[in-house]
């Protein structure tokens, strides 16, 4: 009984959280189009977002490419379909694995970083200090960060994709007959424009979700050092969940769109 009650309150708190988050998002769009725009802080954040996660994205992307190819090879051989390798690798990386894995890595790196940073600023009253000195903290901190993660994510995804394909090409080069040139040629002759567009749109949403959740958790951080840790932690959890949800909706939508 008690357990039942607990799950029920947990479930309702998730809905409340979503409600608050959508209110936060509405405020973001409202403030986004009001003057003035904090250009300097925005560029600084773009640099930070890229810089913070470039290495991690590179390494994960590369390894995913390696592993995917290694795993797939015996299976494809069994069916005599090794020639399908570029096909399989190209489409799965560009369409799904690249965006999702890059975004998950970034959720761990960027959402937690933003959550902790803004949370610490809330706890030490720096956000209040901004407000009192006449700067709108939402505009200065939240709008710039959300915008930078949104715009940087497709680039990080492209970077991760590229390294994954290189990883895959290295394995194929070792294993068999495909030279780098041939392998890449095959991949790109298979891929169509319609494979890239959904991935880019999806990445934009992923970036938006990561920035938004990080800022939201930091902005409403509870007082005390425990609050900051909690903000960082729950930012990662909430952002990751949201990513899967967005991914599901995106795939669903694009399937409807492209089959008709």
């Amino acid at each position: 009984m008690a357990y039942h009650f607990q799950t029920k309150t947990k479930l309702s708190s998730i809905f409340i959280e979503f409600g608050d988050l959508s209110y936060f998002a509405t405020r973001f769009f409202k403030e986004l189009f009001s003057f003035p725009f904090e250009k300097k802080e925005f560029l600084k954040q773009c640099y930070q977002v890229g810089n913070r996660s470039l290495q991690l994205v590179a390494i994960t992307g590369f390894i995913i490419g390696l592993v995917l190819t290694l795993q797939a090879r015996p299976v494809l051989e069994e069916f005599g379909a090794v020639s399908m390798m570029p096909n399989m690798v190209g489409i799965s990386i560009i369409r799904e694995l690249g965006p999702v894995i890059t975004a998950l890595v970034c959720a761990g790196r960027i959402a937690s970083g933003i959550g902790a940073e803004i949370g610490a600023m809330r706890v030490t009253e720096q956000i209040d200090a901004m407000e009192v000195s006449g700067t709108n903290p939402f505009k200065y901190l939240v709008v710039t960060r959300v915008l930078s993660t949104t715009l940087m994510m497709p680039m990080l995804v492209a970077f991760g994709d590229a390294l994954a394909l290189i990883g895959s090409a290295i394995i194929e080069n070792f294993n068999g007959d495909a030279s780098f040139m041939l392998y890449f040629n095959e991949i790109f002759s298979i891929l169509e424009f319609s494979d890239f567009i959904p991935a880019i749109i999806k990445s934009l949403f992923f970036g938006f979700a990561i920035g938004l959740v990080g800022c939201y958790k930091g902005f409403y951080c509870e007082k005390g050092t425990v609050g900051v840790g909690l903000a960082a932690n729950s930012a990662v959890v909430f952002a990751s969940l949201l990513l899967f949800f967005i991914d599901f909706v995106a795939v669903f939508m694009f399937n409807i769109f492209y089959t008709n």
Partner: protein
Amino acid sequence: MDNSRETVVEIKNLYKSFGDHHVLNGVNLNLYKSENLVVMGKSGTGKSVLIKCLVGLITPDKGDVSILGKKLNHLTTKDWDALRSEVGFLFQGGALYDSMSVRENLEFPLRHHREKFGVIKDTTPRVMAALESVGLANTIDLMPKELSGGMQKRVALARTLILEPKIILYDEPTTGLDPITSREIVELIGKVQHTYGTSSIIITHDIDCAKVISDRVVLLLDGINYTEGSFNDLYNAKDPRIAAFFKK
């Protein structure tokens, strides 16, 4: 206190609760021009809440606040901006932006007050002047984490002064500092009031600080302004509830 003096802050019947917790229960308070008003009270009586109501960080449930003749409950964003350049706020922990250097910290408030100062091409002289007034001109290129607690508080005061506010609200300016540094801060507050003619509300638990600095002391108890008077009046009061604050 003679009532002929110009009132800069007028608080009438201010109420604020957080859920069931009634913090302010009808506070009435005036701050006169060029006056140092010390607010004392037990921890948790809502002193911080009170001054946060004056700068819009907390919205009161009921009651009126006027600052420099402007009523706070119907101000436009633009009016708020203008008002905020006239009201300085020193946070208890200093609240320096720790991702910015001391110079950037001081430049930060200047970016948004074009109406008051016009477009400032070179902010350095202004930043230097503010830092010199707190005796920390040599820290201009340091980061906040490289400063001691007392220095951080003085830099925070410099950041408040740089807008040349008419009113400054100090939230426990000497708490957590050693006696020598707190005396320095107290002297600094006195100096600021002298040179700029600012009116101040100073929240403090520090009897020595209150004694040196106050023109008038208000005691906050149970969410209302329980009593007020000069430091000596309150210090020698017979009422046990007042005397409890000034344990000798």
